[in-house]
């Protein structure tokens, strides 16, 4: 069984456009178990119901942004080891530093091509 058959991903993004693009890209890679949430809080709810291997989250979201979500994920023993790929429209050192401290697994800037996303995911979970 290949990684893509087994991998479970949670996509967190408040805009349906970028969420849709990520979901479509993942679908194109053959990743079958994908869920989504509109913001950090809903993501945590979803994680409580069903854990995943990898979270792909936007940084800039209302209520709870991507970093806070990452913090919450790392603070909970059940999800502490979950992979976390942060996506942001703006890359700055402060954001990366904060991410590193929270053991963010990878980082991607928007806009990206599906191949960029694939590479970013594979560098965390292995060859799909």
């Amino acid at each position, binding site marked *: 069984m290949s990684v893509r058959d087994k991998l479970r991903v949670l996509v967190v993004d408040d805009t349906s456009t*970028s969420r849709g693009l990520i979901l479509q890209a993942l679908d194109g890679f053959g990743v079958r178990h994908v869920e989504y949430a509109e913001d950090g809080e809903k993501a945590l709810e979803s994680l409580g119901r069903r854990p995943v291997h990898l979270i792909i989250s936007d940084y800039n979201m209302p209520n709870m942004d991507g970093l806070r979500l990452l913090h919450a994920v790392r603070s909970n023993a059940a999800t502490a080891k979950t992979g976390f790929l942060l996506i942001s429209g703006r890359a700055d050192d402060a954001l990366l530093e904060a991410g590193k401290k929270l053991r963010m697994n990878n980082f991607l800037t928007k806009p990206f091509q599906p191949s960029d996303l694939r590479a970013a995911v594979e560098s965390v979970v292995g060859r799909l």
Partner: protein
Amino acid sequence: MEAIRQAFFEECDELLDQLEEGLLALQDGAGDGDTIGAVFRAVHSIKGGAGAFALDVLTDYAHAFENVLDQVRSGTLALDQDVVMVLLRAADVLADVARATARDEVPDAGAIAAAKAELSSLDPNGGAASAPPAAEPVFAPLALDGLDDLPDLPDPEGAPDDDGPTPALPTGAVRDWTIDFEPLPGLLTSGNEPLYFFRSLAVLGELRVSCDTTGLPGLDRLDPSDLMLRWRVHLIPTAFDLTRTEIENVFDFAEGLCHLKIVEGTPARDDTLPEPIANPAIDPTTSAPPPPSVPSPDPTAAPRPESAGAVQLGPLPQAAVVPLPPAAGTSARPVAKKPGTGVNPSEMRAKPQSTSVRVDLQRVDDLVNLVGEIVIAQAMLSQIASEPARHQELVGTLDSLNQLTLEVQDSVMAIRALPVKPLFQRMSRIVREAAQMTSKDVRLTTSGEDTQIDKTVIELLADPLTHMIRNAVDHGLEEPKTRKAAGKAATGTITLSAAQRSDRVLVEIADDGAGIDRAKVLAKAREKGLIEADTNPEPAEIDRLLFLPGFSTSDQVSELSGRGVGMDVVNRAIQDLSGTIAIQSDPGRGTKLTVSLPLTLAILDGMIVSCRGERYVLPLASIVETQILEGSKIEGVAGGGQVVLMQDHMVPMFDLGLLLGRPYVGVVEEERTVLLIEPGDGAPFALVVDGIESQRQVVVKGLGESVGRIPGVSAATILGDGQVALILDGVGLQMLARRSHAKPERLAS
């Protein structure tokens, strides 16, 4: 990809609305850090989406805008009124660029350059150019442990079924049966009752019964001894080995009295039977729950996206979102076997088009429930009507059917109703542009944005409202220095408000300007021959002169609100919406226009009156009072007209028949009645009709293109007895009256 692109532009519109809303809140001082965050996020998301679709002009401009907003967010750029104005103008340009891009047009490069220059002048870092894309930051990915062997995760999906009332299907190779049962005449008279058949079938397994009522004739032709109904039964047997014979045995006694077709398998959806909604004939304790009529958000019923492009992001109603299939397939259950829920969500999605309405899911559910109840009531009626002894129940059920129909009507109207907020938001841009062109300082305040009006009314209101707002800025408000000289704040205020008053919505456009210059209006009206030179109309009547065709007080046709169209065009547009405008002006303090609109254009509360043997409908809203003609205090006036005393005022009186060109012949009827009509713009008149029949709601039917515009007639309706009646409108009748009977000086006298 195209679907997502389409969805992006729809989302873009929402983000632009949020952006403007946030900036307006900041302008009013109502915003806080969250507002700034939301404003930033809106532009940021537009940039992100635009980038994904390589819409370079939009991306680039949004990027410049975002840079400045980032300065605001971080506190490097202080937010004052001037900055907010720049941001609002930048947002207007962003909206233009986005919309042009959506239409594959080339955005206005000049406007973009100007907006960018204005934005970069704000940037304390010296312009957007100073923020070159930083070198791509390096981030060393952190691989998960055990790459080759992802940990097995607990699978709550494997837990017992939790998807609502639909019972879990037996997983074995159970064969479903579809039974079409069509009683022939004589089934009932031979002592058979379909209900018993269904009860017997229910013993064999789970039933889904749908009834085809299309064979039912009208009540008058209903033969109580003939069923005229057909049923389709979907049977999911409890036993694995149910045979056809066992099913046939149920119908033993009906042999020769019905057509029976028993086939194996789940019923295919065809047009011969309606969608099952409910079946009141079945004992609720033994029947299966009716299949939902809207796709339930049952993820297992949704098809799994198999290929790229399967993830469709239609422009879903916000609340009515059918969740994306969570690529679900977390279990390999045979999802396609569930009967009744196999509706592909993508079929239910509206095609991306601007004519869609976003509807709160609750409203749709309410409507679906009501329709279900109507079907039940209809079925009960058929049942009761077949039994002569139950006439009393028939009346009661008819009553409840009437009630349900009213509720359905309200629900449907509610679906068409939208808040005026987006319309009001558009007006803030109109105000900004008008203020800039006239070099006036103007502030727009709005209230009652949540008031809901019919979608069509809102759409058709945009133009007249724009015109009224421009007028208010251009003609209503004074120059800043004139205002200061008059002891007013230099910034003029335009107040736009909406409120519901019973079945009408009032929209008010008020300015705190100089008010109407009545001397000037009067002089103009005399000059143009709109009124006789020697009359001295009341102030309110002078104000109303503004609505007369061709009236324009502006010394020169200003670029902004002129172009020869005046308030008469606005007035007519509002009349076309069955609305009225009232004007109220206070010299030195401002002018207020009050537009009164019906909640809907489809249903009218009307009074049915008779005149010369014909029946007409008058909008109830325009009738203030009725009194019997006989005994009313009537006086003739010079020139042949008549006035009548109503509500302590002498008002001009006209005969409806004469207005419609049907002179009165024959004896005077005693029932003749005078109605006091107030068309809305403040000049009541009395209308004599031959009699009043009733008050009721009527469904408004357009007269159609071929008939054209008939003065005084707005539409037609079909009355309960099938007769067509014309719907009259007060404003039109008043115009008829003025034209045919009284000259303006008589109105003033």
